[in-house]
């Protein structure tokens, strides 16, 4: 039985996979039709006909993960690392009967590489679907508080 705790635990586990660079385990959390979305506009509605920083399916996420380990991926020499500091997720919907599971999590994200350290603040909105008796990520949406600012390289996943 999916409960609110199931959702929160999954969000914590996702952050842990990212922080410990278990990329394949992270990808495995996604539903085959899942998407990772970083909008470029305030309260953006459309990921396709409005500009986004990222709107990627599993194929493109696999490309990113595989690239991180590539022998000729020079922007990963040295490698980046990341840290997620999450507030307790707010469960927006937990409706097993309808199969709708949504949460919103406020967090601070840090990405480092060599001597550089960049810090970002924002909210993750997760939508899950139930597959078997587990939840899979249907959509992870990352809204940065300063989505419109000019960032340098963001190479890992928020």
């Amino acid at each position, binding site marked *: 039985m999916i409960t609110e705790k199931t959702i929160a635990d999954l969000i914590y586990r996702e952050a842990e996979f990212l922080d410990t660079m278990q990329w394949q385990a992270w990808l495995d959390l996604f539903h085959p039709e899942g998407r990772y979305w970083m909008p470029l506009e305030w309260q953006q509605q459309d990921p396709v006909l409005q*500009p986004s920083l990222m709107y990627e399916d599993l194929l493109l996420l696999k490309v990113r993960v595989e690239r991180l380990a*590539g022998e000729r991926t*020079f922007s990963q020499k040295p490698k980046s690392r990341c840290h997620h500091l999450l507030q307790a997720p707010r469960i927006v919907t937990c409706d097993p009967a309808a199969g709708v599971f949504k949460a919103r999590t406020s967090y601070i994200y840090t990405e480092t590489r060599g001597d550089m350290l960049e810090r970002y603040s924002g909210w993750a909105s997760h939508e899950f679907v139930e597959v078997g008796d587990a939840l899979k990520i249907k959509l992870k949406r990352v809204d940065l508080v300063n989505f419109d600012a*000019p960032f*340098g390289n963001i190479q890992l996943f928020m």
Partner: protein
Amino acid sequence: MAKYGRNAHAVAALVRDAEVHRDVYVDPEVFELEMEHLFPNSWVYVGHASQLAKPGDFITANIGRQPVLASRHSDGSIHVFYNRCPHKGVKIASEPCGNTGKFFRCPYHAWSFKTDGSLLAIPLKKGYEGTGFGDTQANGGLSKVRNVVIYRDFIFARLSDNGVSFEDYFGESLSTIDNMVDRSPEGKLAVVATPIRYMHTCNWKMLVENQTDTCHPMVAHESSAGTAVKVWKREQGCSTETPMAVQLYGPFMSPYEFYEQSGIRIWPNGHGHTGVANSIHSNYSDIPGYLDQMVAAHGETRVHEILGEVRHNTVYFPNIMVKGAVQILRNFIPIAVDRTLVESWVYRLVGAPDKLYERALMYNRFINAPTSIVGHDDLEMYERAQEGLKSNGNQWVNLRRLYESNEEQNVTAVINGTSERQMRNQFHAWAKFMTMDMDKHIEAAE
């Protein structure tokens, strides 16, 4: 230590026939001189008229480092001003765009100006009576940028009063803008969203040069485009249709021979483009309905001319790049000698199917975003160059690929697509627009 100020000979000597001195990328004094001479002497992109659809609409931009403001006046005309109040210098508009209504009002002392820049009102105006205010520049309102040309809705400005005319400056290079606009069934482009912004810790010219550097994609982008091709081959299963995403990434891995035969065209004053015969944009899938719309609008023959021209990157000297086939303009905005803000704009082809706009937006985030893996590859190279150029072991950057000893400057030519001639062309123009008014400044100072 000032080496280059008021010294046109020293500046010109930074550019040899097929080499440039590293100071053009790393010396803060050279950067200051670019702000003082190169950008004011050049025609610089300010924005697009569709961003100023209604009277009172405004946009802000920088030319070099100088803030400017463009507005749509009540009679429909477009004006460009220096973005400062004539009173104390406060920026009149601080947002990227907006609508000011019937007039601009300075937030500091409420001086107000019509949208053609003329002075409308000053509180307690009688305090200026008998002070000689009428003879000051302030009485004229917002200082106007006098040399403004709007070409097919693209707004360009030259800050210097004297210099090369718009027509002579761009010449035949405007054909890339023509082609992009002609790709709309209604002959019209529209900016409908904000650009993707990406901060680069490198000199702005490294980005401009990279636009026509066709010997780097298969090397530097092996990590991104190469991986995309590899993962797709493995994962495609029995798919018969290549997804739009893979169509966009794949051609970056084209071999040297592809780029060699696709060619480069150079024009006078530092403009030029890759992809003359064909380009990495040539083999995208047709978008249903688009061709029919175009034929209805332009006729069969003309449509084949328009869509048959699939240029890759067109550099408009000094600091923009236009991609007609995917309706993108990248603006390489200099912030400091080692800092460049890149704003990548997508234009919507008015009247064309949504799918074309979707593809342009996808290309923009794949290639031009701070989250772009192709962008990561490139920025890593620029940053390493910015560091490496501090080395004294060799003070010159080599641009000699396919150089011919009798190579003509300031001409139109079509050449092998792996030539570095467009980079040489840019630096020839760089020396010209840097030094063209330096002697006059010296005379004025003496």
